[in-house]
């Protein structure tokens, strides 16, 4: 066990996976000599050389297209898209190709690819360094979508993603890349994809969140605790596959649900969780499902703290959820 940051945990997972399996290789912009703009790939080129830590031309569709070709050949590429906001040129390769190869080839051509990308706001990144685009990918059958919220999960989930035989979109909450340190198990530490975790048990209201929203959610849970409200905080960790059982179990216990994400509300991932509760836990619900999300606007620069859900807004929703019904 070592105390490291989330971005160091990503780095550790990459080191371990590349040492364990010569088929694992990395490609992306500025990931080699420069070690990535967030230093997630720092030191890797030194140990594994430029053939396995590939600095590519500036083309996201080229990066993902090439990663697909590497996987078709039998390698296990981990592609980095420098900011999730820049993934759209590769959207065609991801949605039309990566997600569909196994299905359209009857299993002849699986795509063992991970796409890592820092996502989310709170770093003064403005429109194009702040977006949370997880819903686009979660909507596409054939992709797994995974988002860690702490160093141990970052290593465990990324290791599982790298050794998963199907494409995984691995979104890294850059706002908390260095904000917290945590203990991370050494060696082959894996967290299975599709398992939510109970960050904080509680009995009155269930709060579902992921990624960089976990710290403000925990802060809100602590705040309402002082008022005698017990909030259960569940980190979804993986949007696809989704741990439906964990969500339902919690709401069957509390009868109340708040969903938090920084992406816009309209057709955001929270809508899927709300629909799941409407379909499978309606009779357990004592009050309407509430969502605390970003606004249905592009991501703002100067007013990002107004845009992003914070502990205050989340606590407000928890109280309202507990009060109603």
């Amino acid at each position, binding site marked *: 066990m070592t105390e490291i940051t989330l971005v160091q945990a990503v780095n550790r997972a990459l080191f371990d996976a590349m040492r364990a399996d010569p088929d694992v290789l990395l490609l992306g912009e500025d990931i080699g000599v420069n070690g990535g703009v967030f230093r997630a790939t720092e030191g890797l080129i030194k140990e594994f050389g430029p053939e396995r830590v590939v600095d590519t031309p500036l083309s996201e569709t*080229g990066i993902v297209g090439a990663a697909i070709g590497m996987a*078709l050949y039998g390698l296990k590429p981990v592609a980095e898209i420098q900011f999730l906001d820049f993934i759209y040129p590769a959207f065609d390769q991801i949605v039309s190709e990566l997600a569909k190869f196994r299905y*359209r080839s*009857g299993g*002849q051509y699986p795509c063992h690819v991970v796409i890592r990308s820092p996502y989310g706001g709170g770093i003064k990144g403005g429109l194009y360094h702040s977006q949370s685009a997880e819903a686009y990918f979660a909507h596409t059958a054939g992709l797994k979508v995974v988002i860690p919220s702490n160093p141990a999960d970052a290593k465990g989930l990324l290791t599982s993603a790298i050794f998963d035989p199907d494409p995984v979109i691995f979104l890294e909450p850059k706002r908390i890349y260095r904000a917290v340190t945590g203990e991370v198990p050494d060696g082959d530490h894996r967290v299975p994809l599709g398992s939510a975790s109970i960050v904080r048990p509680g009995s009155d209201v269930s709060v579902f969140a992921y990624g960089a929203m976990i710290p403000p959610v925990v802060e809100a849970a602590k705040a309402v605790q002082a008022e005698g409200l017990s909030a259960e905080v569940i980190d979804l960790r993986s949007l696809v596959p989704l741990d439906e059982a964990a969500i339902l179990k919690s709401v069957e216990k509390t009868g109340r649900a708040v969903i938090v994400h920084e992406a816009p509300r309209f057709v955001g991932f929270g809508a899927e969780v709300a629909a799941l509760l409407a379909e499978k836990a309606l009779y357990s619900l004592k009050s309407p499902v509430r969502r605390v999300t970003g606004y249905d606007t592009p991501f703002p620069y100067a007013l990002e703290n107004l845009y992003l859900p914070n502990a205050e807004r989340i606590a407000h929703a928890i109280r309202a959820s507990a009060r109603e019904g």
Partner: protein
Amino acid sequence: MILGRTLDERMLGLQRQGRIGFYGPATGQEAVSLGAWLAIAESDWVFPGLREQLLALARGHSLVTYMHHLFADDLDPARGRQMPCHPTAREVRYVSMSSVIGTQISQAVGLAYGQKLRHDPGVALAFFGDGATSANDFHAGMNFAGALSLPVVFCLTNNQWAISIPVQRQTHVDVLAEKANAYGFSGVRIDGTDVVAVHAALKEALDRARTGGGPSLIEFVVFRMTPHSSSDDPSRYQPADFLVRGRARDPVARLARLLRDRGVLDDEVVRTVAADADARVRSAVKEAEATAPPDARSLTTDVFLPPGSGGG
């Protein structure tokens, strides 16, 4: 080539009768597939466009399996999930094709990266049309291949039409092969209706790729002698003399003339080959038509590998 021509005639007819859903013929472009088959080695990978099925068959993909694909039945390796003419044939290193234009170009480049990394003597061949030269992945793939000096051959079959758009409207460049200059490697234009020329150009490009010389672009100029697909009506946009000019460059007739001149082909051989192709296609059609549609359970399989099934 005769088999390809027979398939095109028969399958377009079956599509008109409603017995298969779609068909994309390759009539007029057969020399590209055949020349490629003669030039490539077993270790080479093919990333096809819409009209390279003959290459899969020449490499040994079973005609009956291909027919199951055209009929989208339960014995199609891809369980009828794709429109006809999008086969998958890993056993002959023929990659599953999508309908999206140009995406295979970057993918071929990635596979070539793998070959280079593993010191594999193989080369990746990306096939695409003149329309694809306007697509994002043409630029991305060509640029990657040049920058990383990869063993890939870009096979641009210029059939002069992207559905209804003539190549002159696709680009302001007269010779598409010249686009290779922008990426720092060789581009040549050749007559794609001449099997011998196709073979020679590919042989040179493949040798270059195998010996560390990097990528090449070859533009094969051909005539699309049929509609774009069974859903297209070229009388809406194609000048009447296009087919007349095309017929003068029919790749099958050209090869037949060459072989007759060399004394290795006569009427008897032509009759035998045609009768054999006809019989094989008829028998495959019969077999596929007698096969059930895909099992309903296949709707939800192959999205992901089920947990616990082991490797990928």
